[in-house]
């Protein structure tokens, strides 16, 4: 005879144990980054010390090293600049395309949309070899412009797909009403659809930006000088002198880069899912 109350308790306990196990396994590396960032080098490299606590008082020396003696800030700047420009390019290309494919092209427009989405599946690890030659020919080798030109190859298909989902959820009648009132199709798009989809567009902006910050292969392939490098490649490559890893600064670099992105991402995730399920379910 099952008691409703005790069933609830079992439910709570098992749910929380599952969540605790997974949360610890998944978030632990970041906690570890955090501890390593503030531990003195001597503390880090003494095997006998309990690594989970501060045996010596915490320190800011790794942070000072990171910001003072490495090009970390430059990489942050490069990544931010590239991110902003790529977001701009992506919006210019993807917004009209997504609108056209949702509203103006009927069945074969849907097909084209799917094909565009499939290009997202073509991996950088296949294209990077021919693209390295293209980049060299264009003379963009070892500059941030190389990635500015190439990054939209994955941000655009992804954004088109996401935007199509958002546009589909806007009823056609709104644009029809606007056209009856005298706007042209294009006018309806610019003055009506875009403002309504602002939250969807913002979501696309955020996700595009995070895709840029996470990228590794193209930046590694096209850019070699420390000054021009992006965050994702600069940190694992240049914070290593010879075979010696500066773990304190490395972990600081990782932590500082990861957290803001994580916060932004979380804020927009629900909207992302909304756009994505509309697209998939319809």
């Amino acid at each position, binding site marked *: *005879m*099952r008691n*409703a109350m005790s*069933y609830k308790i079992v439910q709570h306990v098992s749910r929380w144990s599952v969540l605790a196990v997974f949360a610890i396994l998944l978030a632990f590396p970041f906690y570890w980054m955090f501890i390593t960032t503030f531990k003195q080098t001597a503390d880090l490299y003494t095997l006998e010390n309990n690594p989970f606590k501060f045996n010596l008082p915490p320190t800011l020396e790794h942070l000072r090293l990171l910001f003072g003696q490495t090009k970390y800030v430059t990489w942050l700047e490069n990544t931010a600049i590239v991110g902003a420009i790529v977001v701009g390019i992506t919006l210019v290309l993807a917004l009209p395309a997504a609108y056209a494919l949702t509203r103006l092209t009927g069945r074969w427009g849907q097909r084209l949309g799917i094909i565009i989405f499939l290009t997202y599946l073509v991996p950088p690890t296949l294209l990077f070899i021919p693209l390295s030659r293209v980049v060299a020919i264009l003379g963009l080798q070892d500059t941030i412009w190389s990635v500015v030109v190439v990054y939209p190859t994955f941000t655009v298909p992804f954004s088109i797909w996401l935007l199509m989902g958002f546009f589909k959820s806007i009823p056609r009648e709104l644009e029809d009403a606007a056209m009856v009132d005298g706007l042209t199709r294009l006018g309806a798009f610019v003055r009506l659809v875009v403002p309504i989809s602002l939250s969807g567009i913002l979501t696309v902006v955020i996700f595009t930006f995070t895709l840029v910050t996470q990228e590794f292969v193209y930046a590694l392939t096209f850019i070699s000088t420390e000054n021009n490098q992006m965050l994702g490649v600069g940190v694992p490559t240049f914070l290593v002198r010879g075979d010696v890893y500066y773990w304190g600064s490395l972990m600081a670099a990782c932590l500082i880069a990861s957290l803001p992105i994580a916060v932004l991402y979380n804020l927009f995730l629900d909207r992302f899912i909304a756009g994505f399920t509309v697209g998939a379910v319809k």
Partner: protein
Amino acid sequence: MAVVETRNLTKVFKEGELGAVNNVNLETREGEFLVFLGPSGSGKTTLLRMIAGLEQPTAGEIRIGSRVVNHLSPRERRIAMVFQSYALYPHLSVYNNIAFPLKAQKVPKDQHRKKVEWAASLLGINLLLNRKPRELSGGERQRVALARAIVREPSVFLLDEPLSNLDAKLRASAREELESFHKRIGTTTIYVTHDQVEAMAMGDRVMVLNKGVVRQLGSPTEVYDRPADTFVATFLGSPPMNLLENGDMIVGFRPEHLLPVELVPRAVINFRLRVKNTEYLGAEWILYGMVTGGKFDGKQVVSRLGSAGSFQANETYEFAVQEEHLHFFDRHTEKRTEPKVLAWQ
């Protein structure tokens, strides 16, 4: 023996606010078709779900077959439920949908086929056993939902507005099927709806609810001809009962009883009506009028007629209501009271 009984059943969702269900007492009769009727938010679905075991009451007792079941899970209560959306398992065939409760209750496998086919034949869906729910029409899905419910031979059927997802045309025939189904199997059934036509047509008894409180429990004739308060009076019947205030009473009369004076033998109230609008509905006319002169000058009333003869808009005519067709309600409690002699001029 009452099949389902509730005593002082209450459900409060938010502390300090009025409950969704407040102190409901009810006793079903064996084999009856009992309808919970009320507008949305009246608590009828919450009440049903508490009986099913899908919601826990805040206070009060629920008994099924004279066992107290408050602490029992739905499966232990021997009830079956048909949801508004039918909730058929989309990935299972009709056969497996119907067999699922048998599997869940660990009925021996060799008995499954017999029982499924019995349930299916009761509803005439034997030919559909291999189909999937998405291949079925709305009416067919209802029948599958019923078969899945009956296959366990429950002591109570609970139905949550099963007709509201069907389109209007289908609803009438589906309703008729439900009624004959109930006659065939005779299981006590509780049926939730907001549609008073369904309630009157199908119910052996109707329980009218508003804001979580039972307003009246009685046969269709009782709730229609002797409504217990103004809510029941206006909720049943379309167009709703006309209500006029007279002193410390509210007097009501149904549109079909407000007739041209020639047709009313023992007229008690006479009105001079200026016709504002008439609607021709095919089988009858609805006439909207405004009282001119006398105590109720300016009040809007509605009349229902077999034929509108020669009624013109903006003309005034003499209408009347018979004594037997008057309902009296206390103005403050809004509850039904004894007729009183009142001044009408």
